[in-house]
């Protein structure tokens, strides 16, 4: 279940209350997000749409703990993250969040296997266990046969699949996708969206996705609209 009216919803995995984000640009104060409320249950696939500058990416950054709100609270799986210290937030991100970027953000000098292994380097897993996890993640995205290829040797769609494998390898609580199909052709974009759907259906992953593409938003279970920093109840897509 997804709601934006701020009514207490105890079972929600993600609870956002009265979230405000302001930026100072010279003497001008810019209100990017204003009193935003959001509840997302586990296993939901939510799309955020809206024009440029509406605050979509800012919201994603706040939910992912890479930016701090001006006021309000964000609670994920019982952890209130809006007042966490920098080091605690870093550890929290490593444990709970999988990030998927528009430009994939792979390390070009590492192979697909090594890129996927990066989050596991922060854990106490043995080399053998890391290998098992990485191979499993690459199998989920269908790139077992490309694990020793470098990003430059992969197509855009394959690179994004490696990025998804990297995001899921440590089994995070939820995934944040910032325009995951924005740099792909229609065919590759469909493949990525199919994969994200499968992560929700087969692995009960919770996914929050920012997109400009209505066809991508249609693939989510719920589509929400952000305009001038205010979240508007969207429609259920019926998927």
């Amino acid at each position: 279940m997804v709601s934006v009216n701020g009514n207490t919803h105890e079972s929600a995995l993600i609870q956002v209350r009265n979230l405000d984000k302001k930026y100072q640009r010279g003497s001008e104060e810019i209100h990017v997000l204003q009193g935003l409320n959001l509840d997302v249950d586990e296993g939901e696939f939510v799309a955020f749409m809206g024009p440029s500058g509406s605050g979509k990416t800012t919201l994603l950054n706040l939910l992912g703990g890479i930016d701090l709100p001006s006021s309000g609270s964000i609670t994920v799986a019982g952890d209130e993250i809006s007042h966490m210290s920098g080091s605690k937030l870093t550890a929290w991100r490593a444990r709970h969040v999988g990030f998927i970027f528009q430009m994939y953000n792979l390390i070009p000098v590492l192979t697909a296997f090594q890129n996927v292994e990066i989050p596991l380097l922060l854990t106490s897993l043995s080399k053998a266990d890391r290998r098992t996890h990485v191979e499993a993640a690459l199998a989920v995205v269908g790139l077992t046969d490309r694990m020793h290829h470098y990003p430059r040797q992969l197509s855009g769609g394959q690179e994004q699949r490696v990025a998804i494998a990297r995001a899921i390898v440590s089994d995070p609580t939820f995934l944040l996708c910032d325009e995951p199909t924005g740099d792909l052709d229609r065919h590759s974009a469909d493949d990525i969206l199919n994969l994200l759907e499968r992560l929700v259906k087969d692995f009960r992953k919770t996914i929050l996705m920012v997109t400009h593409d209505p066809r991508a938003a249609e693939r989510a279970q719920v589509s929400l609209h952000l305009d001038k920093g205010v979240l508007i109840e969207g429609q259920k897509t019926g998927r």
Partner: protein
Amino acid sequence: MKFLPFLIANLLRKKVRFIMTIGSFTIALFLYCILATIERSFNQGVEVAGADRLVVINKTSIISPLPFSYKERLTQIPNVKHVTYCVWFGGIYQSEKNFFPQQAIDLKTFRDMYPEFKVVPKYWEAFKKDREGCIVGPSTLKRFGWKVGDRIPLRGTIWPGTWEFNICGTYDGTRGDDDLTQFWFRYDYLDERRLPEFGKGTVGWYMVKVDKIDRAAEVVAAIDKRFTNSAYETKTDTEKSFAADFVKQIGNIKLIMLSIGGVVFFTLLLVTGSTMSMSVRERVGELATLKTIGFSDTTVLLLVMAEALTVGLVGGGIGVIVGKIYTLTGDPTGGLLPIFYLAPQNMITGLGLGIFIGMLSGLMPALFAMRLRIVEALRRV
């Protein structure tokens, strides 16, 4: 260890730049090794000088002789244990370029004065039996391809004519810094052949060993007092002080070496620092991604510092090894630097300098990476 493949991949991302940076360290550290070797060579006399040995020279100058008769008078001075004497020969073997130190020594007293030089008994016995005999250091033997039993001609520069010597043996040093280039021959052979007007009956300098080191100052004063107002007044000093004064006459070698080394390392720091900064700025997006994934600020700082450390360690290590190999090939000046020896402590210092410069050059870029704000950095990608 689990970050090692990541570290190596990052270092090798621009191979030419990596090789050039390593090369800068290698050249700088090689230069350091050579400078340290030269500095050590100049100061070798000071380093190995015996604390209980005194040098007695003519007060006018070291090239003015002293009478042979002073030997007995020196022996009579209280706290004097041994006295020996030497004469600088200055002969030429084939060409002026083939410099090596040659001195006429007293067969009976020389070894009491210099126990650090070891001569096997059969060589010394042969030397005692052969008036034209000589003992040659292993470095000089190797340099000219001589061997025991060879007859060597030297052209005299102070005492004219061709002087021929039979190599009776060689010696060895008991310390790493001992001069193994010397050529000793018998004083009686020199004195017999030279003409009266060319210093017959004189010696170049005396060496005096005291029985107690703490009496050295008293003995120095007593010797010079004994010969005051004589035709050959003396100037006595400890061997260490004498060697140090000798080096000072050439110039402040240490300061020259430090100045050159300082400029080289400062330039290296600027070049490497700039390279490391460039390398980090090119990776702002990647560093932001790592931080997003969960790498802490400290981990990112350590990763960048580890890269800088590796460059310093590898480049510096190669430089030190190449420097050591070069010094093992021997004195490149043809005899001006008889002890061309890179000591282990200089190698360790060199490696430490490489690591220090590497770390220092990586510090600013590492701090930049540590302070990088994820949101701003991701916007640049």
